[in-house]
């Protein structure tokens, strides 16, 4: 703990009290997903341990986003099971389980444009987690500090740059204090010069015991923070491993091809 920077102590309260790393937080069992005739996920099996940082990469249309969206039932699998924290996710208990365990950060930020940044952050804690206004605002400022945007608390999201909006969206996800945060291509809609500010926040987050599943095309980020990388193509997981293995000697030709194109 002594090597933590001052700013990192913010996170300690977040992680205290959670079980130690290693328990299975997310489990996908033979998950298939069809959009009409299109077979988007083909018998996907995947486990994510508590505190693990899993990065999913792969070409566009490979089913990465769909896989992540199945983890909180934004997409319902056509067949197969999804378990969150040991409990099977069904359409009936979705709202409850999602509330308690997962948050999501979207490619398009999806902040609520009719509310100030502060309201965006306090809405769920107040209405869903029954926190008082004071508690919710303290929480909101706490996470605004972490993403470095405290001074934007009272502005409307549309007046912010994409990078700032995404940092606010991450703060909003953190305010739910869930064990899992899912990131669906969080930097893909950003201008190149604002990508890094978002990645920096995520890199800092990754030092904590939060379970992170990140769909991204940012290979530098994947290499730096991933405990494990999963490569998807045509709706299947075709290779997985630690970043070291993944970037230095991938086995699958498809992966080699992809990495050859993306890393110059």
């Amino acid at each position: 703990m002594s090597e933590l920077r001052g700013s990192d102590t913010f996170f300690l309260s977040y992680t205290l009290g959670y079980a130690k790393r290693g328990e299975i937080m997310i489990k996908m069992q033979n998950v298939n997903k069809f959009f009409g005739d299109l077979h988007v996920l083909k018998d996907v099996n995947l486990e994510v341990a508590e505190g693990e940082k899993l990065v999913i990469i792969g070409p566009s249309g490979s089913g990465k986003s769909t896989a992540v969206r199945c983890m909180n039932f934004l997409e319902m699998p056509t067949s197969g099971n999804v378990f969150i924290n040991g409990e099977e996710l069904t359409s009936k208990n979705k709202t409850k389980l999602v509330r308690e365990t997962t948050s999501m950060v979207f490619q398009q930020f999806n902040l609520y444009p009719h509310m100030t940044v502060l309201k965006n952050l306090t809405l769920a804690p107040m209405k869903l987690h029954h926190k008082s206004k004071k508690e919710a605002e303290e929480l909101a400022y706490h996470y605004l500090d972490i993403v470095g945007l405290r001074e934007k608390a009272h502005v409307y999201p549309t007046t912010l740059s994409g990078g700032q909006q995404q940092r606010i969206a991450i703060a909003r996800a953190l305010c739910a204090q869930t064990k899992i945060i899912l990131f669906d291509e969080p930097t893909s809609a950003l201008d190149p010069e604002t990508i890094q500010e978002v990645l920096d926040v995520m890199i800092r987050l990754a030092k904590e015991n939060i379970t992170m599943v990140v769909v991204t095309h940012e290979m530098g980020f994947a290499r730096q923070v991933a405990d494990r990388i999963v490569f998807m193509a045509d709706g299947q997981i075709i290779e997985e491993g630690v970043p070291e293995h993944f970037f230095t000697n991938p086995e699958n030709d498809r992966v080699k091809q992809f990495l050859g194109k993306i890393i110059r």
Partner: protein
Amino acid sequence: MDGLFSITAWEKVWTYRSTFLLGLYNTSRMALFALILSLVLGIIFGLMATSGKKYLEVISRVYVEVIQNTPLILQLCFLYYALAFSGKSLGIVVTGIISLGIYHGAYMAEVVRAGIGAIPKGQFEAAESQGFNYVEKMYFIILPQSIKIILPPMVNQIVNLIKNTSCLYIIGGADLISLTYSFVTGATTGGAYAPAYLVSGLLFFIVCFPLSTLASIWENSLKKRELKTAEAVKTISEGVVTK
């Protein structure tokens, strides 16, 4: 003595002014109750149309299409005479309120559907991913955003509803048009056609014009604000404003 410029005709209208005011009162009262019914139906069927549940969408669609593609007068007569012959007449006023409510409910449903449909999918997903249930999601996140889109066309529908009370004439309602007609054809009051219809029209205009003006002002300011937001976003993304 019947002409537009006949003093006696105008005097007659003035003497019986309470008839016109009663007509206006009846029309407004019926319009108000019909409006409440149409709003309730519009919200229910509008929400059904955007629920993503196939059977609810079909029910909503059938209601909207059947009502919008048959004349109001037919619906009015159908309800009035069908009920009258089955021996359970609800009376002219209640029948009028129900028919007008159902008729405009179909249009309100379309307005609500369009308003909700204009909200980006990401807003629904963000709300769901935070764990809001359907009611919470609509109440806190979706409807506050769609209300601005919904209100101007809704006010236009209110104007139409007020004007459509004139259809009650066909079943002999006590609305403004019916009373005007009784007035101009009455044994003692008859004759003053032109002034009577002019006054009747003026009363409709006095009620409807402010409403439709409000609706168009509202709509324009909404468009302006959208433009402003779009410009602000563009300016920021072009990096002209740097923080």
